[in-house]
């Protein structure tokens, strides 16, 4: 219970991660159910913000960055929960665990898979946001892409750890947001701020400090997840 039994290390961490990631992406690609579901969910969320606030274009334009990230956050809860539900069917998780691969590879593959999914979602949402909220990308597309990638990485690392926990608990649909939302506040805050700066100009050059905060958040939680994840899925 206190220590993990030594596992046979037949393949390296990177190779195992890539193999698992390939497996997850293949499953995802065969049905595309998860991607479709979260795309429609996020689109609906963006639309609902417009309806909830009325047709005040100034307000929508001003807060677009925040709504964009809230839509991604809500969709991420669905995506993260689903990423482990795939494994719990037919006890696939036991099979993955029995494979002679490092348990940390499971974390890396799941978290990377979730990052890819969320980044794809975010990339699709950007044009919708531009159209719905009437915003312009003032600084550069590169900045927005960087923020999108870092923000999705930041949601995925702690999200994967918590999804692994909550997928095995009762009331997992309640538990995941309850655990995840307070945790990702720094990431959400910096991503939303940085996105707003991209959309409205950055006269005081604050973009890099938000980027730095997001980067630090990523470093910490990818590190923590990498170290602690094996403890979660051990039996």
């Amino acid at each position, binding site marked *: *219970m206190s220590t993990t039994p030594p596992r046979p290390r037949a393949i390296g961490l990177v190779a195992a991660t890539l193999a698992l990631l390939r497996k997850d992406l293949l499953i995802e690609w065969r049905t595309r159910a998860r991607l479709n579901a979260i795309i429609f969910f996020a689109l609906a969320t963006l639309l609902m913000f417009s309806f909830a606030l009325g047709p005040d274009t100034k307000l929508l334009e001003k807060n677009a960055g925040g709504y964009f990230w809230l839509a991604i956050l809500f969709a991420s809860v669905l995506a993260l929960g689903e990423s482990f539900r795939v494994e719990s069917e037919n006890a696939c998780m036991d099979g993955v665990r029995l494979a002679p691969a490092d348990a940390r590879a499971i974390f890396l593959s799941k978290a990377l898979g979730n990052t890819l999914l969320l980044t794809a979602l975010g990339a699709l949402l950007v044009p919708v946001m531009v159209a719905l909220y009437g915003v312009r990308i003032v600084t550069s597309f590169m900045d927005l892409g960087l923020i999108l990638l870092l923000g999705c990485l930041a949601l995925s690392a702690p999200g994967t*750890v*918590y999804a692994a926990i909550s997928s095995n608990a009762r009331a997992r649909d309640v*538990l995941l947001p309850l655990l995840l*939302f307070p*945790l990702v506040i720094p990431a959400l805050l910096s991503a939303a701020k940085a996105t707003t700066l991209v959309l409205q100009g950055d006269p005081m050059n604050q973009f890099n400090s938000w980027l730095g905060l997001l980067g630090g958040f990523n470093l910490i*939680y990818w590190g923590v997840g990498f170290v602690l994840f094996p403890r979660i899925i051990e039996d």
Partner: protein
Amino acid sequence: MNKFIKWGLLVLALGLLGAGWWLGLAWAPPDREMGDVQRIMYVHVPLQWMAMLAMFINFVAAVAYLFKASWKLDSAAEASAEIGLVLGTAGMITGAIWGRPTWGVYWSWDPRLTSEAIMLVTYTGYLVLRRFVEDPEKRATWSAVVAIIGAINLPIVWFSVRWWRSLHQVQSSPRTVDPEMVLPLRVSAFGMLFITLFFMAVRYRQALAERQAEVALPDALPGDVPMSASHNPSKVA
């Protein structure tokens, strides 16, 4: 012997709290700017300190649990999280009430207030997780992981909220505090410390008894154990 320590702790705590609060309410001078409202400090600050202490104990117990699993550490983590949540909630409510006459609002998005609110949500999540996992070993490991991640998050939240607010907030300069305010604060803080320790001791023993009952349950189930016995340890979910 143990009983004497336990009840002695409670008596000591109540005595010190009573004395500290009496000093704070009747003996200490009113604050230069805040007047009598400042007397909220003697209840608010000890609550916050002890909430911090409890959360720190929770973090230490969680880390220790991952290194060396034991029901004692798990019980200590559960007890400290619950007590920290209670004290922190009371601390936040008194802080909000204090904010009303001084800031004019109950809630400002001050980094400290905001971080504390996030901390309370984090530990609520922690306790809810503990309720939703039946297997005691899994519950202990998972909640230790959640506790560590949540505790790491708190400084990050603090910095990020400070940055988030920094554009329109003035950093304040140090100011000396009247020594006559230090004594009541110190006495009530010690009172709060002892009452926290008392609660912690009681709650810890409860948690430990629950764990032991849970672990013993599978052996007790088959056979002719009376219903009341197998029902006793079950927790209200």
